[in-house]
């Protein structure tokens, strides 16, 4: 018998330690929503008119690539840019000081250009020193550093006048070259094919930079004169790189308009006051509950409080693990979960009192209370869980955040309020001789 309790206690202690390890230090680990740290949330919609239904999703992906390109240029830490549905793009920029500039940037139409690269290293050195020759400009390849901020790498001196622009592109897609490496095939329209043939014929062995909104995406070498309007871009691309390059090329041919349909800007001061007020409120609420339950149920109340605290610990640890975003309604969801955690224990303790009144022994009262309260706990928690999960799945923004913490909290609750408290109660009953139960 004892051995069984030891292993249960070990599971509980292990879980507590694991949770603490996961969330420490909390400040760096937990991701805060825009409402708590300030920033900007924008939803963009690709205009559906004139776009075939089946192309809409691809169109959105291309638009997303353009926007990502521009946002990266802003140097925002941890921007979130993602596709939603077939034609929406969500952009979350935490802590952006100048939202208007960012919005202006996002709204522009994409500019894709092909520019010849000068191979004169002397000219490049001069340009780097500040003397850019007439008719040329200095552009950079950009790469993300480990914080996700774009840094200039590899400078390129290119002709200011583009040889070709995105409007001549018909399509671009990923394929494989003879040695099995991914490559990108570029298809040009009739007019583009003619220009391209001319440019390639005159500049064999020179590099042609692919520039999106002023950022060099790739600068392949022209191997030969290319006729027929179809070109292969090879290199030791990974699939991902090839795919991104194809998207960049197609982005240049983006005929759709992108509109801002939702915009939310929270100033950093409001974010800070939201977080302090939300936490303050939750802590006051928590203290009120803890005291009330201890006064009402004595030692058992303390146990219920412990279960509720453990519930919050596990909830936050899970949030950190799945990289969930904590929003203000999310904090409210946590507070509510605590209420549910207390409710489960109230159900058990009230049952215990009934059983004691009915004259049962302490051990029998406890077992019977847990057993009989279980159906009420499971049914009530699952009905609430159903709402929580649906809120998370179908809701947006704040509603989603609330559904997330509520759902995690309820699952944690079934574990802490029943398994954890029962194990501890059984343990106490086993190690001490208790003649009379006081609930």
């Amino acid at each position, binding site marked *: 018998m004892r051995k069984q309790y030891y292993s249960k206690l070990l599971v509980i202690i292990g879980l507590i330690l694991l949770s603490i390890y996961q969330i420490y230090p909390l400040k760096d680990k937990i991701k805060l929503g825009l*409402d708590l740290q300030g920033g900007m949330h924008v939803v963009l*919609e690709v205009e559906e008119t004139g776009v075939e239904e089946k192309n809409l999703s691809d169109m959105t992906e291309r638009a997303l690539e353009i926007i990502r390109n521009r946002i990266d240029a802003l140097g925002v830490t941890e921007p979130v840019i993602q596709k939603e549905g077939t034609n929406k793009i969500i952009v979350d920029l935490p802590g952006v000081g100048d939202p208007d500039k960012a919005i202006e940037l996002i709204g522009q139409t994409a500019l894709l250009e092909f520019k010849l690269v000068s191979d004169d290293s002397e000219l490049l050195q001069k340009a780097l020193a500040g003397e850019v020759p007439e008719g040329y400009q200095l552009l950079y390849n950009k790469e993300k550093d480990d914080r996700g901020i774009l840094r200039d790498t590899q400078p390129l001196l290119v002709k200011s006048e583009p040889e070709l622009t995105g409007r001549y592109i018909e399509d671009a897609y990923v394929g494989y070259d003879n040695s099995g490496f991914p490559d990108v095939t570029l298809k040009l329209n009739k007019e583009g094919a003619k220009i391209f043939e001319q440019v390639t014929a005159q500049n064999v062995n020179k590099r042609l930079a692919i520039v999106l909104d002023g950022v060099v995406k790739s600068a392949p070498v022209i191997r030969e004169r290319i006729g027929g309007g179809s070109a292969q871009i090879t290199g030791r691309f990974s699939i991902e790189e090839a795919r991104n390059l194809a998207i960049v090329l197609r982005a240049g041919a983006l005929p759709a308009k992108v*509109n*801002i*349909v*939702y*915009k*939310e*800007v*929270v*100033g950093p*001061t*409001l974010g800070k*006051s*939201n977080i302090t*007020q939300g936490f*303050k*409120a*939750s802590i*006051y*609420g928590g203290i*009120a*509950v803890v005291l*009330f*339950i201890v*006064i*009402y*149920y004595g030692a058992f109340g303390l146990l219920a409080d412990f279960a509720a605290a453990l519930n919050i610990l596990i909830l936050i640890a899970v949030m950190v693990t799945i990289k969930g975003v904590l929003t*203000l*309604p999310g904090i*409210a969801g946590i*507070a*509510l979960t*605590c*209420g*549910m955690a207390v*409710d489960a224990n*109230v*159900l058990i303790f*009230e049952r215990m009192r*009934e059983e004691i009144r009915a004259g049962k022994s302490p051990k029998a009262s406890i077992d019977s209370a847990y057993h009989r309260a279980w*159906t*009420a706990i499971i*049914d*009530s*928690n699952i*009905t*609430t869980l*159903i*709402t*929580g999960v*649906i*809120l998370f799945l*179908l*809701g*947006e923004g*704040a*509603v989603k955040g*609330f*559904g997330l913490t509520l759902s995690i909290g309820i699952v944690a609750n079934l574990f802490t309020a029943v398994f954890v408290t029962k194990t501890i109660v059984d343990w106490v009953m086993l190690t001490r001789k208790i003649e009379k139960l006081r609930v």
Partner: protein
Amino acid sequence: MNIIKNTNFDFIGKRKIAYVFSLVVIVVGIISFGIRGKANFGVDFVGGDMLNIEFTEGVDASEIRAIIKDLNIGYYSVQVLGVENKEFIIKSGPETQDKIINAFSDKYGSDRFTVKAKSMVSPSMSASLRKKALLAFITGMIGILLYLTIRFEFRFAVGATVAIFHDILFVVSILVLTKQQIDASVIAALLTVAGYSVNDTVVIYDRIRENIRKHRGDDYSVIFNKSVNETLSRTLLTGLTTIFVVICLFLFGGEALHVFSFCLLIGFVIGTYSSIFVAISLLIDWHRIQPHKFNV
């Protein structure tokens, strides 16, 4: 400590009074809702601009209204936050926000106020948000109905669902009567109220299930009353603790949680009330009209 011991109140007998009370509030609420129209909703659900602005010194709200009125931008509303008359929430039609900010700059100087938050929702987006909120709600209802039909029986599931509808209508009525707006956070609150309401109902149902099995042949209203009384101490205790939390959110949670916690406060009280006076009372009256043997 023990507040309640062995009570034997006749809740079921008092249900007619409760019916009248609920009906009056909800009917008045629905009528006011109809009269108020579009103003019931926040920018999330009808589209438009929302501006949260704070001045360095107190400003007269009527002055703010006059400035916006002079812009001739159509619909707008100005809400004062706090007691110092420094902070305002201004709602207006789509793409009118910049005009308002410019007008304030001209009048007061741009260093005299800070824009704490602003948002813009296009009509197409608000329509999709509306649809999503409704979809979430209906799906949730169906989920609850199915689960309770499986765990109890169809009539019980209907009772609980009607109680949820009652609670949501009740809270919305109070919101309308207190001139609050329905936005995304209110939807989150209403769904929480639904969850709480059904949670409370299920706990009493659970006891009814047990008592029906134990006392076969007894009159249902006796069994139901007994079940409510037996769970009364739990009902009050849980109700009080959750309401403690919500009161704290309401008092200290700041503006962002104000309407949210207000909904929860009303909703939790009504959710507790509706378990007895809607969910269970309905089962009794349904049984009177159409006798039925509960098979749980």
